[in-house]
Each structure stands twice: as structure tokens, then as C-alpha cells.
């Protein structure tokens, strides 16, 4: 899936303006100092402050494509710096720059002075020698002095001291070295003024570049990848909800969203054998004919297929349950229907969104994804919100309504199915009638009857209502929807939003959950005494208060373990502590301490204190 391309597409606008800025500043360096004004001006280091938003994981890709484009079109000298790589001394920062291009450089003391000398030799060398060198082979229009671009990937993390010193040093060389900085900023641009004092920030000529906000970014991704019939793979409402809420509540990272989408895709094809049919229509139809008997049985067991069977006549039902070939024939028809359903669903969804998204208070959601999710979950027309949206629409003024309808018609234009074309015709017809009725409006203003416009308005809304009822039915209503829809949101949530603490507790209180050892299987509430030592110790400690007496704990442990060994409760050494048990106990307790459930306390020497609450 070409999701990566999409991401680049999104950043293009910002990157283009950034590239333009860098080109301009490098050319202004070359213009030299013959101009009075540029001679008089204090030399500032051209700096681009690139505000990228808090979704730090996404930044890497942006910076990578930025430096690639820079290297291609502006200058071969581009360094990206990460704060953690240059915590100590700023001079090390120059090293990658030098190392990448010139090899025989003495690396004893790298300073900007050496960088400067190196730069001079490099630029001279390339322009005295014939233009057959590597520079031209990359395809740069030969510039006299390609700028040195230094990208600070995460400005917030750089220690202010290092940054200040680095800028001061660089500013001493700015007249000879065409340096350009790019600051990657995750929060707000005012962070520059917080970290740098005026004496330092006055050395920089900062220009601001704001990238798309990550919510807009997400909206575009959803629009291009999910709200389209192009890709056969679909997400159910719950799964989409999980992905979106991870995005909104936790990380704002589009990259993680896409990763989640890819995981869902993988899980779907891994867990659902019938996903062979989840591909383009022609291929899917080809696959149907190759289905084995087992596959057909799987189809027959699909809930949506069973519902479909129940709706058929008794004769058909028998056929559908016994005759494999008949099932295959029906499947072909159903799959084609499913594809048609998708082709109609998305345009109508967009139209409904256009109509409702401008209503006050957004009864059906501001974003199209919200509308999409509610359509996926149940019949959207049964919602109260839908009814209220319709009443609001019935009160809409004429100009607004007409402009909305025109937008809808634009959306429906590229529709290919017969139904969509019919809808488009009908809509265009309505629009023309509207414009006519607007002219007649003035005359009928006085009459108390419903005006022409009002009648038309009702007609339009009736029409849309029927469209919604016809095309926006939830996918569960479609037979064979399981083929395309991935719906196990719990799996996805478990993978993407891990809860380490809950897992530890599950492991300790119910070892069967992870070990799958039949001897550990227990009824609810009871506890197998054959469980690992740490589980027994954990279970026993739940019964204690804030302070735990170690000796009592040990005795209880010994009793449980003796029961597990099958000893006779009446015998003398039942529950007796021997060296082995003692050692096992100590080990389990220290493991529990390591996991952070208990710690030693100074209040009583032979006690430990609990760090968690509750228990039995």
C-alpha cells in the first residue's frame, strides 16, 4: 500500500517552501558584499524554524526526505544532528560533514576553522577541475558555493549551552562559510527565545515554517486510504475507533496509525482463511472457483452468510447448505454486490458529511471519520442525531443549501456505478429546479402556502434520506462482509496499547493464561498449588496487610507447596520448612521485590512492606 508516498505528498508544501528559503539564502550569500545594505547589515545565520508538532516519531521521515531533497537540489553538504548524539561538545558535530566527503582529514581537532579550510579546498577543487566530477554527476546546477545545511532535528532536547556556543562560533565564520540552520521544533517556536538569550538569537535570521497539524494529516490519510473503495481491505467500526483513539489520546503519530493499519491488515490475512477473497474484483472472482470444500464450509458458517440463507426460500436453503457449486455461484453474485455496495457507500457518505458538517453543533460529527464510524456500527438513520440533523437541514436557507448540493454533485461526478449516475442526474435536475425556484421566490413570498422552494427542499431531503437508507447500511448487513472487514479490535488493542502491569498481574494470578499447562487450569477463584513459586508467593501476599511478616509468609508457602507434593496432611513433616523450600521461597520473594510489589522496610526488621493495595 502506497502510504509512504502519501506522507511525502503531505509534507511537500512545507518542504518546498523550506527549500526555496534555503536556495534564496544561499544565493544571497553568493551575491557577496558589493551592496551597501548587505555590507552594513550584521551577518545573520539564515535559520528556518520548522514547526512539526508533537508527534516526534513522524519527524524522522520528514527530515529524511528533507535532507534527501536538499542533497539532490541544493547542496551536497547536509548534516542532520540529533541532540543525544552531540550532548558534549559541539565541535564533534562538524565531523560527519567532513567525514562524509573527504577521507584524508586529520581528525585530531575538528573545529570550524578546519571545516572552513576544508570547505575552501573542496569548492576550489571542484571548480578548477573539469566538470566531470561527482558533483555534476548528481545533477546540480553548479553553484559557486553550495551552502552547508545543519539540521537540528530536535531543538528542545539540545542543551542550551551547547547550542549557544555553537551558534556563536558559527556566526564568527558566517562571512566565509555559507551556513544555514534548520531547527526542528516540536512544541512552539517561542522555545527559541526561551533557550537562546537575545545576544545569541540576534545572530540568527529566523523564518518560520509551519507544517500541517497532525490531525489534518490524519484526516488526509483516512480520506485516502480508508474512505475509498480502491482498497478491498476494510476496518470495522470498532477497530477504526481503537486506532483513532490511540492517535488522539496517546501519541498523535500518523506513522503509528499507519503501522496499526498495517498490523490490522496482517492480522486479517493471517487469521481469516477466507481473506483470499479480499482482493480486487476480478481476482476475487477467480479465487472463488478454486475454493476447496473446506473453504465452502467456512463460508457457510459465516454469520452474515447464515443470515442470508435464512432469508431464502426453503428450496434454496437446502441447495445453499448442501451444494458446493451452488454456493460458489451465489458467492460470485454476493461478492459483486459487496463491491457495488462499497462503490456506492463512499460517495453517499461524503455527501451526507458535506450536508451535515456545516450544521450548528455538528450533530453527526465534525470529521468525516466520526460519521463513518457511526455508519459502520449501526443504521445511522436510527440515531437521534441523524433525526436532529435532518430537522436542522429542513430549516436551511436557500443559498446555503444550493451550494451544499453543488458540492455533492461534484463529489458524485466521478461515480462509475449506474446507481450513482442516476443519483447524479437526479441531483443536477434538483439543482436546476432550485435555481429556477429562487427566481420565482419573490412572487410567492406573500402567499401563506408552502413556497415552491420549501416544497423542493423537502423533496431534496426526502431524496437524500432515501439514499442514506439505501446505501449507508452497516456492512454487517452485507453477506460475506467478513471477507473484507477486520473486526477483532481487542487483538489490535492488546498489540498496540500494551498494558505491562495488567499483564504481570494476570500472569501471577492466573499462570494458565500464559503457560497453557493443563495442570494449572483452575476454576474461577481457586488456585492451583502446582503453580510456579512466585505465583504462590504472590497469591499469599495478597492476603496480607501493609506489612508482611516474612516467617508467617514462609510457613504459609511451605504448607501450600507440601499440598502440591501430595503429602499426607497428617504426616509429621507436612508443611515443614526444609532448605530447598526455604531457598525457593527466598528466590520467589526477591523476584517479587524486583517486580516492584514489595520492598524491605526499616519499621520492623523481619517484615517487608507491600507496595500495592487490595487483594482478597
Amino acid at each position, binding site marked *: 500500500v502506497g502510504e509512504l508516498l502519501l506522507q511525502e505528498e503531505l509534507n511537500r508544501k512545507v518542504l518546498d517552501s523550506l527549500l526555496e528559503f534555503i536556495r534564496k539564502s544561499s544565493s544571497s550569500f553568493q551575491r557577496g558584499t558589493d551592496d551597501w545594505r548587505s555590507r552594513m547589515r550584521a551577518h545573520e545565520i*539564515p535559520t528556518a524554524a520548522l514547526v512539526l508538532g508533537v508527534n516526534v516519531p513522524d519527524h524522522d521521515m520528514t527530515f529524511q526526505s528533507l535532507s534527501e531533497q536538499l542533497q539532490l537540489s541544493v547542496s551536497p553538504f547536509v548534516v542532520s544532528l540529533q541532540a543525544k548524539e552531540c550532548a558534549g561538545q559541539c565541535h564533534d558535530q562538524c565531523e560527519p560533514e567532513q567525514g562524509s566527503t573527504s577521507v584524508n582529514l586529520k581528525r585530531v581537532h575538528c573545529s570550524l576553522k578546519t571545516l572552513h579550510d576544508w570547505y575552501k579546498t573542496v569548492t576550489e577543487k571542484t571548480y578548477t577541475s573539469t566538470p566531470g566530477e561527482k558533483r555534476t554527476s548528481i545533477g546540480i546546477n553548479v553553484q559557486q558555493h553550495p551552502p552547508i545545511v545543519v539540521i537540528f532535528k530536535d531543538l528542545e532536547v539540545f542543551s542550551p549551552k551547547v547550542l549557544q556556543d555553537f551558534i556563536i*562560533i558559527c556566526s564568527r565564520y558566517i562571512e566565509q562559510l555559507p551556513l544555514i540552520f534548520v531547527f526542528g521544533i516540536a512544541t512552539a517556536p517561542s522555545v527559541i527565545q526561551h533557550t537562546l538569550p537575545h545576544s545569541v538569537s540576534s545572530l540568527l535570521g529566523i523564518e*518560520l515554517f509551519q507544517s500541517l497539524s497532525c490531525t489534518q494529516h490524519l484526516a488526509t490519510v483516512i480520506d485516502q486510504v480508508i474512505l475509498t473503495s480502491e482498497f478491498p481491505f476494510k476496518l470495522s467500526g470498532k477497530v477504526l475507533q481503537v486506532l483513532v483513539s490511540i492517535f488522539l*489520546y496517546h501519541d498523535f503519530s500518523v506513522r503509528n496509525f499507519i503501522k496499526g493499519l498495517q498490523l490490522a491488515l496482517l492480522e486479517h490475512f493471517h487469521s481469516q482463511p477466507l481473506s483470499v477473497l479480499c482482493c480486487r474484483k476480478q481476482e476475487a472472482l477467480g479465487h472463488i472457483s478454486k475454493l476447496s470444500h473446506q473453504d465452502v464450509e467456512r463460508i457457510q458458517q459465516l454469520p452474515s452468510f447464515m443470515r442470508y440463507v435464512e432469508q431464502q426460500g426453503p428450496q434454496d436453503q437446502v441447495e445453499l447448505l448442501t451444494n458446493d457449486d451452488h454456493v460458489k455461484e451465489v458467492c460470485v453474485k454476493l461478492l459483486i454486490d459487496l463491491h457495488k455496495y462499497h462503490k456506492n457507500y463512499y460517495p453517499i457518505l461524503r455527501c451526507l458529511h458535506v450536508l451535515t458538517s456545516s450544521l450548528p453543533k455538528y450533530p453527526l460529527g465534525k470529521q468525516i471519520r466520526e460519521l463513518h464510524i457511526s455508519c459502520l456500527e449501526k443504521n445511522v438513520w436510527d440515531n437521534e442525531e441523524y433525526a436532529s440533523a435532518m430537522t436542522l437541514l429542513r430549516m436551511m436557507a436557500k443559498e446555503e443549501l444550493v451550494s451544499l448540493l453543488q458540492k455533492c454533485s461534484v463529489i458524485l461526478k466521478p461515480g462509475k456505478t449506474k446507481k450513482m449516475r442516476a443519483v447524479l442526474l437526479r441531483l443536477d435536475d434538483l439543482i436546476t429546479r432550485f435555481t429556477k425556484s429562487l427566481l420565482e421566490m419573490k412572487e410567492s413570498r406573500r402567499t401563506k402556502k408552502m413556497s415552491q422552494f420549501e416544497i423542493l427542499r423537502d423533496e431534496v431531503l426526502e431524496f437524500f434520506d432515501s439514499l442514506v437508507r439505501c446505501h449507508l447500511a452497516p456492512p454487517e448487513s452485507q453477506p460475506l462482509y467478513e471477507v473484507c472487514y477486520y473486526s477483532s479490535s481487542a487483538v489490535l488493542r492488546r498489540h498496540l496499547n500494551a498494558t505491562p502491569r495488567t499483564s504481570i498481574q494476570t500472569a501471577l494470578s492466573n499462570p494458565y493464561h500464559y503457560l497453557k499447562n493443563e495442570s494449572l487450569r483452575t476454576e474461577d477463584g481457586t488456585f492451583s498449588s502446582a503453580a510456579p513459586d512466585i505465583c504462590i508467593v504472590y497469591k499469599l501476599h495478597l492476603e496480607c496487610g501493609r506489612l508482611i511478616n516474612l516467617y508467617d509468609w514462609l510457613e504459609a508457602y511451605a504448607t501450600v507447596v507440601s499440598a502440591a507434593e501430595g503429602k499426607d496432611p497428617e504426616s509429621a513433616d507436612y508443611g515443614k520448612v526444609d532448605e530447598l523450600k526455604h531457598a525457593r521461597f527466598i528466590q520467589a520473594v526477591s523476584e517479587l521485590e524486583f517486580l516492584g510489589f514489595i520492598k524491605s522496610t526499616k519499621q520492623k526488621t523481619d517484615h517487608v512492606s507491600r507496595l500495592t493495595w487490595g487483594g482478597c
Partner: protein
Amino acid sequence: MAGQLLQPGYEENKLQRVSKLLPCRDVQSSMLLALMGEPEQYSYPSIFIYGHRATGKSHVIHTLLKELDIPYATVTCVECVSLGLLFEQVLFSLFGPDSATLLSRSPSLSDFVRVYKQLCVQNPAKQTKYIVLDRAELLRDMDANLLPAFLRLQELVEDNVTVILLSEIVWDKFRPNTGCFEPLLLHFPDYSKDELQQILSEDSHPSYSTELYSAFINILLGVFYSVCRDLRELRHLAALNFAKFVEPLESGKVNESETHKLWRNIEPHLKKAMQTVYLREVSSVQWEQQMEKEAGAVRGLSAHGHVELPYYSKFLLIAAYLASYNPARTDRRFFLKHHGKIKKTNFLKKHEKTSNHLLGPKPFALDRLLAIFYSVVDSRVAPSASVFSQISSLVTLQLLSQVGHNDQLDAPKYKCAVSLDFILAISRTVSFDIVKYLYDFL
């Protein structure tokens, strides 16, 4: 005009040229010349020159040394992250490119002295050599023996050498507690308004008369002198705004003598410049473009104060703010349902009664942060790994700061590093009334 610089041993015309290049610094330069004496004479071992930014310290020294053909080495201490770099640069400029190779990989001070002596014997010089150390305050952070050694380098290397230290800080802040050789102190006072006027007027635009430029500088100083006396910055501002100043002249509406009209034209622009380009809210290039186009003001950097955060990050930040600014003992009152009444006055110790916002954020443990977080966030949140990772990403965004070593895995402590305005804006977006939960505003 410039007083005559007189010093035997130097050519007359060179001295004259120097005095022309150093306007308003006659006293200082003649004093320096007197200290330096004739080229062959030994000078005082070390001279300490201090004065504010852009008071001509480096300019005077460099012009003197350069114009009078005196051997010297100049090193900016910011650049010298290691001693080796410093020594290397000194040797490089005094003895030529080969000399630096004699130093070992990470040379000590005695290495430097040894190499210096060795080179001195090889090529003995009659003239006094000078080592200029710019931003000398950074020497204090390097090895403890470095500053005292440089102050008496003449004795150590037994050569005719003088070290000149330049700094913006007074000598009292330098004096090591072990004591050292006292250098000669020389103060460069700030330029007065008249002096600024004189210096700035000197670089007039070639296509306009000197008087006009001088008038412009006068207006400029009238606006900016109260906030900025930095010569460098003022020159920059003059260059940026001169085009606007002569705009009416260019279009022929006004002639050069009507200074009042010119003043009326430029004054609002200068005022605006003070708020924007001087503070580097907009870059100089943007400022110039804006002047050309008139319309479409560029929004400054601080106008973009808004930060978007994920939903739970917002609550984590709110919880962190509460934990930082509320005394821990008041948590019961804010986050327990049946807390009972607590009287503010009797409840707290004396030092807790002062406003916590005046005292600044206090460190808090992770446990407390999470406890507050779970009670302020309205829905049930699973303690998932991403909640924890959000805390660390807040730290990297510098919205929280970790107290103590960051290798402390067990019970880390944090501080909230955002302002009240910021947190108010954040809590408004999640419709959480943070003021109700702040002890200071009770």
C-alpha cells in the same frame, strides 16, 4: 577630532591611519600604545581589558596590532573546547603552520610551554609578541592552572610576549582563590549617545549626502537609544530601515531639507521595528519584504504559542502542574470525595503559606503524578505502556523536566516546566477548571 597618537618606534603615517580607524577610542588606544612601548621593549606581562558588548575592545586591539605590523595571535575562547585547540591556534599564528604538529595529542600546559620555548630558540624575534584571548571569561571553566599561567606567560616561556585578555566581565570575578599575578586593568566605557551618533554617521550610504544619513541616525537613536546601545545592533537596524527613510525622497515627494516630514514618515516604522525585528520576532529578510509590500504583517515567533498535545498528555501535564504547585498534604482535600473541611490557615506549616507560584515548581514522584492523573482524567484509563511513554515524551519536549540523574530508574522525580498561562490554555481545551484545584487560588 581624533587626538594624535604618538609613540616612538612606529611610523607616523601608520599611527595616523590607526587613529582614523578608531573613532572615539583615542584615550584607550593611546593608553594601549603607551603600555606596549616600542616594538622591541618588553611590555607588561598581561593586560585585562573589559567593557560591554560592542564597545570596541577587539576592534581596537586588532586594528592596532594589525596596522602596526606587530606579531600576534588571537584566539576566541568559545571555540576552544579543548586546551589543545587553544594551544594549537596560538602556536599556529605565532610560529607558522608547522609548529602545531609539535604538540602531543592532548597537550598539557607544560607541553605548550616546552614547545613554545623550543620554537623561540629556533626563531628568535626581537619584537614583542601578543596573544589576544577573546571572551576570556571562559578560561575560568578550563583547567585551574590555565588562567594564572597565561597571566605570567612572559616569565614561563622567557620570551618577549604579552597576553591580552578581553572580557565583558570585571576582573574581580576572575581572580582565582589561590591568588595570581595581577594584570593591568583597562576599562572600555560604553559609547555615549554623541559618540554613537558620530560612529554610525560614518558609514553613510554612497548615493546620499552625509548630512541626510546623520539626520537619519539621529532619529534612529531617538527611538532606540533607550532600549539598545549595542553599536552592532544599531548599525544593523540602521541598514534595515534606511530604505524606508529615503522612500519619499526617491518618489520625489519630499526633498532632503524637510527633515520633519521625513521624521513623520519613518517614526512609526521604527517603533514597529523595535517590537518585531529588534526582538527577532521576524527575521531581517522578512522585515525588509514587509517594508516593500506594506501589507500582510508577518506573525512573529511568539504569536505561535499554541501547542497541540494528545488528550492524555494534556491531562498528564495538568496532573504534573498540580503536583508541582500544590503541597502534597493538600492532595487529600482536592482529590478525595469526603475530605472534610480543612482550614487553610491552620492546616499548613508556615513556609507553605507563601504562594507556591512565587516559589516555583517543586519536584514530585511518579506515583503522585499518576495518582493525580487517574483522579483528574474523567474516563477509566488502562495503565498502558503508552501512558508511561507519554511522560517521557513530555520530558523530551521540555514540558516536564526530570529532577536528579536520568539514570535513576527507580522512582524518578519530575518537575513541571510550563507556565500558568500555558496550563490554563491546555486545561481550557479539555474543559478542566484547573484553578479550582490549585491551592494558591483557593
